[in-house]
């Protein structure tokens, strides 16, 4: 391991350099810039693969390596080194990010072919890869935060990639800003968590803060506070309730971005943070419970929203939110859930990226149309997309043996594991997880058949859908194969769980409240029911081209369960009111208050100025009067006529 550890910095360095070359190189790099971007990402992937390969060859207990680069920040008792931590967890992420990232890079070469700013796009993608790798490879919370905000920046840049040129482009910019700002709200949590950690433990690196000794010295209250702060951060990054509102809008970015950042990698960073901070959460059961609740709420929230969306990307975004809810729920369940959270994250990374790229392929074919009510019957024209998306569809549904089954089922089982003293938990969260699986089946089936199924295409005029270039469909094939097989490869026999054990710890085996086969069977039944319902509604019958008004729930779901309205009324309007009040206050109270002082002075001046009439005789009278006054005073003091 140690002989190749020197390569680790290049994981981040190569894409970073790539981004720098593309950004600073300007138009000179236009011709070959995109290939440079692909190469940088691929090079990172190769290094990741080498490291992975070497790590598999090392004994389990030596798999966690901290690679020190240089002293970053050393002041007043805080010593943070710039260092990388390579362990099974971070390497899983490295593989996911570089592999899926490279595929999406390749896909983008074709997808962005006609965009004059393709070079800039690849620069941002490379920047993203570098930032994401920094996030997962960091050996301290502070460096993690660098990557954390770095991916936020990349996300901001990419969501707003088409933010200029035409009037409606402003909306993309607004969406980008919304994403960044809501992420920042979460980042407040990370900053606060770091402050609490430093106050409690005197350090910010994982090695110290997450060690048993350090955590033993933390009070449960502090641990809970830290855990909740970290959860806030995770909610922002991973679009969890109540900071979920930005994800749907983030679909304004190019579709490869949605696939890479807003499905496969960045949005799952919150789950990574939770799993990485597992020891802290375990020291704070209350925080854990809140994590689970947030996960469960988001799971249902996203699923419900997903059922009503007609925009294919927004439906997938809602689905992403919901699936991350699963991961978050698992991350809150302790060691039993960690491995499955990450496993689901990995499989989700593949199948959701596949689904998004498939959606991109469909959009590409349909002239950037995203309304599913305008699709239909595409299976004949886009066979490769149809098959690969079908694999993704089966995977997300959790149909065995596709990958989603292995990971999601693990989470559902873990949710059913009873917690001492809180018997209701297993039932509530288990039921929610199963219910969520059913709704997931419904909306994904709806999406799939609205797009590909149906007897009659509902296209707008002059549509000639066709598959894109091989650069576009080869990544689809890879991801499709991954969606199908990854679970089988890693899930059978618990390979993946064992792999992560050095990091997340060994989970004692607990029996769920229901027997495992019962859980699996009932889940499958619910899933099939949901899928059949959707099949009946959207494949068997005609889909109207205009959305029907729908029930109250449908309308609410279409409007994201009024999340924006709620934010508007609960946060933005009051905040704006306060800001207006302050603005008026600053002008009319503070500023005017200060100008009161000179006003009073000038008022005095105006009063005394009147004495300066300019009339010589007035002045003379003043002088004479003064003489008189002095004389009288002298008279009174000295006595008249001298003392003799």
């Amino acid at each position, binding site marked *: 391991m140690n002989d190749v550890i020197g390569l680790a910095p290049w994981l981040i360095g190569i894409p970073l350099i790539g981004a720098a070359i593309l950004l600073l190189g300007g138009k000179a790099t236009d011709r070959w810039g995109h290939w440079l971007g692909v190469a940088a990402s691929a090079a990172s992937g190769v290094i990741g693969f080498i490291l992975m390969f070497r790590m598999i060859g090392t004994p389990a207990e030596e798999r966690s390596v901290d690679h020190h680069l240089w002293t970053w920040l050393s002041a007043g008792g805080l010593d943070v080194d710039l260092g990388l931590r390579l362990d099974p967890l971070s390497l899983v992420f490295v593989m996911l990010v570089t592999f899926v990232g490279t595929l999406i890079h390749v896909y983008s070469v074709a997808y962005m072919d006609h965009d004059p700013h393709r070079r800039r796009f690849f620069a941002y993608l490379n920047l993203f890869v570098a930032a994401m790798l920094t996030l997962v490879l960091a050996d301290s919370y502070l460096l993690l935060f660098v990557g954390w905000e770095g991916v936020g920046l990349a996300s901001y840049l990419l969501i707003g990639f088409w933010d200029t040129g035409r009037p409606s482009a402003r909306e993309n910019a607004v969406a980008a800003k919304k994403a960044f700002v809501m992420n920042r709200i979460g980042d407040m949590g990370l900053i606060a968590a770091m402050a609490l950690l430093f106050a409690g433990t005197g350090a910010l690196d994982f090695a110290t803060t997450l060690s048993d000794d350090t955590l033993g010295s933390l009070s449960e209250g502090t641990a809970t506070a830290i855990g909740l702060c970290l959860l806030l951060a995770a909610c922002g990054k991973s679009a969890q309730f109540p900071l979920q509102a930005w994800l749907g809008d983030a679909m304004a970015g190019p579709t490869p971005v949605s696939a890479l950042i807003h499905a496969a990698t960045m949005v799952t960073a919150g789950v990574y943070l939770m799993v990485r901070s597992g020891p802290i959460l375990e020291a704070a059961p209350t925080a854990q419970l809140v994590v689970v609740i947030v996960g469960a709420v988001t799971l249902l929230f996203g699923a419900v929203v997903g059922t009503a969306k007609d925009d294919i990307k927004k439906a997938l975004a809602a689905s992403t939110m919901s699936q991350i809810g699963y991961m978050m729920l698992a991350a809150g369940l302790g060691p039993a859930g960690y491995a499955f959270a990450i496993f689901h994250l990995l499989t989700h990374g593949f199948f959701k990226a596949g689904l998004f790229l498939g959606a991109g392929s469909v959009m590409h074919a349909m002239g950037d149309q995203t309304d599913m009510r305008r699709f239909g019957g595409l299976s004949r024209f886009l066979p490769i997309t149809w098959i690969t998306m079908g694999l993704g569809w089966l995977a997300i549904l959790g149909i065995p043996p596709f990958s989603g089954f292995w990971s999601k089922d693990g989470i559902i089982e873990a949710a059913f594991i009873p917690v001492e003293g809180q018997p209701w938990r297993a039932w509530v969260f288990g039921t929610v997880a199963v219910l969520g699986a059913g709704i997931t089946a419904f909306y994904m089936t709806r999406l799939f058949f609205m797009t590909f199924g149906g007897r009659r295409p509902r296209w707008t005029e002059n549509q000639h859908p066709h598959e894109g270039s091989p650069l576009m469909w080869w990544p689809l094939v890879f991801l499709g194969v991954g969606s199908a097989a990854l679970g089988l490869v890693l899930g059978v026999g618990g390979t993946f769980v064992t792999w992560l054990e050095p990091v997340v710890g060994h989970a004692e085996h607990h029996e769920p409240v229901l027997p495992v086969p019962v859980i699996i069977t009932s889940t499958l039944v619910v899933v099939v029911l949901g899928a059949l319902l959707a099949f009946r509604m959207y494949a068997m019958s005609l889909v109207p081209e205009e959305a029907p008004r729908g029930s109250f729930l449908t309308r609410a779901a279409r409007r994201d369960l009024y999340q924006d309205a709620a934010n508007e009324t609960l946060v933005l309007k009051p905040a704006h009111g306060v800001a207006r009040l302050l603005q008026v206050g600053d002008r009319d109270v503070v500023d005017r208050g200060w100008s009161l002082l000179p006003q009073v002075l000038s008022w005095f001046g105006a009063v005394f100025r009147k004495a300066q*009439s300019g*009339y010589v*005789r*007035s002045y003379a*009278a003043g002088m*004479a*009067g003064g*003489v*008189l006054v002095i*004389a*009288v005073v002298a*008279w009174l003091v000295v006595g*008249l*006529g*001298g003392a*003799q």
Partner: protein
Amino acid sequence: MTPAGLEISGGETVLFWVIAPLMVLAALGLLFVKRAVHAAMCLVFVMVSMAILYIAQEAPFLGVVQVVVYTGAVMMLFLFVLMLVGVDASDSLTETIRGQRWIGVLIGIGLAVILGGVVANATFPPAAGLGGGDPGGVANPQALARVLFGDYVLAMEAVGVLLVTAAVGALVLTHRRRLTPKQTQESVADRRIKALPDGVVLTPLPPPGVYARSNAMDTPALGPDGEQVPQSVSRVLRIRGQERPAPEGPAVVVSTSSTRGATSSTPESERDA
């Protein structure tokens, strides 16, 4: 040097009691008479009386100087200036600054009371006198001259400089700066040539009375075309309306001497200017 306890003679007492009230009255005249000239006359009266009192108080030199300098020079200067300035609204006794009258009166009375009080309460030494009648004493002008040109010679010189400075200062202050350039023969000629398009005639106009029936200052000349030339009559006469129209009819023969005299006179436009 002088015997203590100078007796003030009865004559001086009478003089004082006659002159002092008159002086106060005249001084009050400054306050109450309307015209500045009358005020000046009042002041002259006060000053002459003051000279008399000086002489009575063993200061004959000062008395004379008072008459010469004040009444002779200063007051004459005042009168000259009054003559220059003339009578104007400022002579009126109505007060324009609010409250000024009462303030002024109060201050005046206050000053009088304070000064009077001081004088009344002070203990003065008995009058020593300057020994003017004493044969051993020195006559006033000589004694004064000794002091002035002895102890105070420097002050005397300084005062002399002051006077000269004041005189020069007055000159500078009253000096008028020329606002327009001085007219020369050349500039006058230039101006007239420039005014040629406005109908000014370059050649001298005929003098009045030329070719008129009667050769007189108040009769305009007749031009070669027989028309009258009104400008040939003096402007003063025209303004006064004492111009006499030239009679109709052919010109009479006029004496050559008067014609010669008329042609040699200054041009009309010059006269007008």
